């Protein structure tokens, strides 16, 4: 007898027969939380009519540690390393989103060089996230690890850069309110710039292998379609929204950081299906490379921290702020309320991974479980952020 029965086993059997007035006899399958293709500890209760999904209920909370409560009991600065652990593939973007919200709350300014460095880090993170996502998507399609291996090869090069700069591959803890923690050396910048220049070659290779793949086309085109109006209403953001043809990119709309200085396009899809969501990632990586090349070209000299910024004992005036940015997975927001004390009164993460799952049921209805796995893979979730 386990001490915490509610934690070790989900209630009810894994597979059971249910009866529905309309459909007749159905089968309810509990997928997860330890299923390998649910990308972590995500669980969905899928009701099947034959092979077709007639109902899908996502169940969350297996990785819940009440991140928000923990952050409300510590100072502003000590939450910064914890934001790395939200979406552990994109720690640099998470850092920036939190720094953005705190800077808005405290009315802080950021030096030019730090703004450029932030753009560089965020776009490198986007390359890491999107190339891995494509690899994982192909894992879900059944190509055991071959595309992912090539993605991980490129990812490892970028993570080496992050490690040499911040001291950690994945938990970078690099941004601060009012700038960045350390200044990269000229050698670092040269290595990074060379890596970025070589990245399109990898993308071409990757695309030759994957984009026209017959199995890929058969399994993803027309699968998991979402209409634009539906996606807007459900708050889908990021590549999943733009795959439906909605031109909404926070980098363009809010123009946070120095993004208005960069020349880049926002790729848009037309069908809102799994293939378009895949293609959005490939095209966004190409745009990211363009942004990175401009950033390395224009990077100004100067300090990376605002000399007036106070990190320890930082006490913003009473007030509130909502800072958001275009993370690789969608709109990542931090909502902070200060009551003038060293700890935030309210600290809220707007997790794109969780809200992008709102339409999971609608996407999967009428498809098979095998397609649901691919659809979930194309939404791109990280459970550290979903459950917080």
């Amino acid at each position, binding site marked *: 007898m386990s001490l915490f029965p*509610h*934690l070790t086993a989900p*209630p009810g059997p894994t597979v059971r027969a249910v009866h529905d007035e309309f459909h007749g006899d159905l089968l309810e399958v509990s997928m997860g939380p330890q299923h390998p293709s649910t990308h972590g500890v995500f669980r969905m209760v899928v009701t099947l009519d034959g092979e077709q999904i007639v109902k899908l209920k996502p169940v*969350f*909370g297996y990785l*819940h540690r*009440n991140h*928000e*409560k923990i952050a409300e009991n510590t100072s502003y600065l000590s939450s910064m390393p914890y934001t790395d652990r939200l979406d552990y593939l994109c720690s640099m973007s998470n850092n920036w989103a939190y720094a953005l919200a705190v800077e*808005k*709350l*405290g*009315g802080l300014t950021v030096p030019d060089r730090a703004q450029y460095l932030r753009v560089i880090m965020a776009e490198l993170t986007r390359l890491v996230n999107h190339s891995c996502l494509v690899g994982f998507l192909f894992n879900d399609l059944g190509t055991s690890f071959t595309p992912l291996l090539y993605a991980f090869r490129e990812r490892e090069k970028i993570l080496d850069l992050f490690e040499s700069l911040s001291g950690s591959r994945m938990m970078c803890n690099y941004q601060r309110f009012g700038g960045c923690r350390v200044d990269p050396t000229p050698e670092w910048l040269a290595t990074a710039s060379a890596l970025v220049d070589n990245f399109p070659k990898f993308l071409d290779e990757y695309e030759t292998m994957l984009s026209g793949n017959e199995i890929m086309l058969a399994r993803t085109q027309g699968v998991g379609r979402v209409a634009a109006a*539906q996606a*807007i*209403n*459900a*708050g*889908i953001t990021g590549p999943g929204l733009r795959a439906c043809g*909605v031109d*909404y990119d926070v980098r363009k*709309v809010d123009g946070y950081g120095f993004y208005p200085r960069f020349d880049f396009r926002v790729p848009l899809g037309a069908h809102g299906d799994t293939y378009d969501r895949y293609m959005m990632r490939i095209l966004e990586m190409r745009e990211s490379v363009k942004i990175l090349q401009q950033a390395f070209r224009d990077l100004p000299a100067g300090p990376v921290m605002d000399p007036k910024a106070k990190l320890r004992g930082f006490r*913003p*005036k*009473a*007030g*509130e*702020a*909502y800072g*958001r940015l275009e993370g690789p997975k969608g*709109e990542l*927001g931090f*909502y902070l*309320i*200060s009551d003038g004390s060293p700890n935030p*009164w*309210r600290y*809220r993460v*707007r997790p794109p991974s*969780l*809200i992008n*799952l*709102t*339409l999971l049921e609608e996407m999967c209805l009428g498809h098979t479980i095998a397609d649901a796995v691919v659809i979930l893979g194309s939404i791109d979730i990280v459970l550290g952020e979903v*459950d*917080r």
Partner: protein
Amino acid sequence: METLEQIRDRLLARFPAAKIELVVNPGPAAEHSLLLDAAFAPEIATFLHDDEVLRLDYCSNATGIDWPEKEIIDATTKAKTVQPGYLEAVYHLYSMSRKHGPVILRLRTANRSDQVTLPSFTPVWKSCDFQECEIYDLYGIVFAGHPDLRRLLMWHGFKDHPMRRDYVAPDDYEWEPTPHGSVLDRAKVHYPATAPQPETPKP
């Protein structure tokens, strides 16, 4: 985009019986918000969503805040007044078609114990679906009209609402060989002097 005062005046002209208040944000962000009348909130939400000028079709963030009872001491008379506590739901609205925002809406419950029902915005913005479940789970605000209000992050059968300020964490004390500081205090509560003490391993 219109200023928040203009939006408020337009709402008041459209819903004369509703009580709409502008909540000022004193911080440098200066993102002010509208405190809505819970009774009229669903109609106001539909109006903001469908209005030709505003077209707030996207609800980005929905979250709860706990404001416990606060004792306010008047600076001149030294008289103490107790400000009643309440729970608050905050919504950040943007427009994807008009590319503007945010318009921030707030709803407040009457108290923190028995009158904690607020109207749900999920019928208007589906993006509130999971977020309102989360607010219900962590703060205990009950959203009337929500299609599937359930605990999202905590497990079924969990009783309390952990994000409230007065939440007391369960006594999940683990035995330590040399407790000190706050752990020692908890050890004293967990193992009262009369109860049998845990065996200390001999070196």
